[in-house]
């Protein structure tokens, strides 16, 4: 231990261009994300839960085929790609929700937020960098999950409801699964930044993604159908389905657009509060 502070050998300018600081920030946020074990675990859960539940649901569907109601059969046959992808992602997406919330609330609970804001006092920039890095990571892992998930699901369904990657809309749906998860990642970061407490934020986002959807389905008539259709997770996940279903009020890209808008509003609110609140 010495008491002499060595000057930094490579002179670093205290004035940096916007481009330089952006790259610095993204690297910094990437270091933050990769240096926590919860990242690795959550991503493993995303991959394994998605693959596992797709295998389980498609296998059960095939096993029960003889006793399945004709209406259900018709629904599956109309869009087997939705079944192959959707079954697993319904649960796998929760890992993205939890990790996205933790990426922010973990900073508040540990106090790292103060270190972060001392380093980057322009708070919205910090939030933007964090959301961007996390969204890119989730897009990549999401695709790495979606591709094998589709082929696994398709292989299991093959005997009764064949679907190919070259079928109309299927490739878009496989890419869309990653897109949906990437925007969901930003949505989760926004919820984390708004609520700032882990338990509350996780409850909040699970409520949005899992609870609200069946609740709104209970609403009567066309209003209920539209509210349900415009819910973030309902609208957003349409892009991960090859075809627009009979009950979908939006097309896949419309749905994705609605989800993006909702996410922009939410992250905007989070940025506004981050700026105005004491850290």
């Amino acid at each position, binding site marked *: 231990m010495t008491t002499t*502070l060595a000057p930094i050998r490579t002179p670093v300018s*205290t004035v940096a261009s916007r481009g330089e600081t952006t790259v610095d920030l993204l690297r910094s946020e990437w270091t933050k994300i990769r240096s926590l074990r919860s990242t690795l675990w959550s991503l493993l859960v995303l991959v394994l839960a998605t693959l596992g539940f797709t295998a389980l649901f498609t296998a059960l569907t095939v096993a029960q085929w003889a006793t399945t109601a004709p209406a259900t059969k018709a629904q599956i046959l109309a869009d087997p790609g939705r079944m192959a992808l959707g079954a697993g992602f319904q649960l796998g997406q929760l890992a993205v929700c939890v990790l996205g919330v933790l990426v922010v609330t973990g900073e508040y609970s540990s106090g790292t937020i103060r*270190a972060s804001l001392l380093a980057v*006092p322009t708070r919205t920039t910090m939030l933007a960098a964090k959301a961007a890095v996390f969204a890119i990571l989730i897009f990549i892992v999401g695709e790495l999950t979606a591709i094998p998930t589709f082929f696994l699901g398709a292989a299991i369904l093959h005997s009764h409801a064949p679907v190919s990657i070259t079928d109309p809309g299927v490739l878009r749906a496989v890419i869309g699964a990653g897109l949906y998860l990437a925007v969901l990642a930003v949505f989760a970061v926004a919820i984390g930044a708004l609520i700032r407490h882990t338990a509350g934020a996780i409850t909040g986002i699970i409520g949005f993604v899992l609870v609200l959807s069946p609740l709104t389905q209970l609403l009567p008539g066309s209003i209920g159908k539209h509210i349900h259709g415009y819910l973030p997770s309902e609208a957003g996940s349409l892009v991960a389905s090859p075809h627009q279903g009979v009950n979908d009020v939006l097309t896949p890209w419309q749905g994705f657009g609605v989800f993006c808008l909702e996410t922009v509003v939410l992250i905007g609110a989070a940025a506004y509060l981050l700026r105005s609140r004491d*850290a």
Partner: protein
Amino acid sequence: MTPSPVREHTLEKTMIEVHDLSKSYHGKLVVDRLSFTVQPGRVTGFLGPNGAGKSTTMRLIVGLDHPASGSATIGGRRYDQLSRPLRVVGALLDAESVHPGRSAHNHLLFLAQSQGLPRTRVSEVLDLVGLHDVATDRAGTFSLGMRQRLGIAVALLGDPEVLILDEPINGLDPDGIFWIRNLLKDLASQGRTVFVSSHLMGEMAVTADNLIVIGRGQLIADCSTEKFIQHSSHKSVLVKSSDPDRLRAVLVDAGGQISGEISGQISGQGDEGVVVRSLDARHIGELAAHAGIVLWELSPQLASLEEAFRELTHDNRDFSAPTAAQPGADRVPVPAISEPAGSTR
């Protein structure tokens, strides 16, 4: 006492300027129109009782909290106007600002990257604070002292011109305290601006060249440490004699106030001493000679920083005086043993 700063050529003179700063939480005023300047090239101590607003003031300076009114600038700029702030200001505000699951190395690395600092700088500061061997351990396994060292490493990471440290010796062992004391003096002698809060008066007496004292969010004193002790303390005289009872009577008759006693056990010499106020040493000597009392010791005392501080911040409901120079009518009783200021140096 004005130390002549030895400036590194790369360092700029960067002052912290706080102007008319106020902040309230839930309607309660925590910082109340505070104004002061922290100069480079010396260690400035920031003193005040618990809840005086020291930490809040520091948080306002670095932009973590937003002031209700007034401003705080570093080198003339607001903290959020600095483009790579850790290169200008190093702050230790709270040892609890590291994720327990992240290693010390990775914590420093993400901060270094955010400032465009080279990776090698991380190892340098880890060496400096003595955490090199535990650099890859998760910070959750660290003791308070280790977290405090990590916080100091963070503050020094950007080789900053200004250091703002909130209670840096908290949790450090005696070796660590000695180390940080020298480190702070060293940093100041290089021309840096060093602003350190503490509730330990003794520590500030040894470390700080200047003091800023606040109570209830208001400025109480802003002067050199020496001047603070001199001005805010009444002088007293320690007298030891063969006949303490008679001496006491003589001194009281002459208008002296006996403000404390030292028993033989404490002084370790089998004699008794009294601490006298309102009479100077010369007068006491003459009185004793006149009464035929043998004096064994007759030494003027300077109140310690701690005493001066206690006096100033005592019952700070009534604080309205902006300076420390006016002695109040009601004095806090001086403790039995008044430590000469010289002994803490």
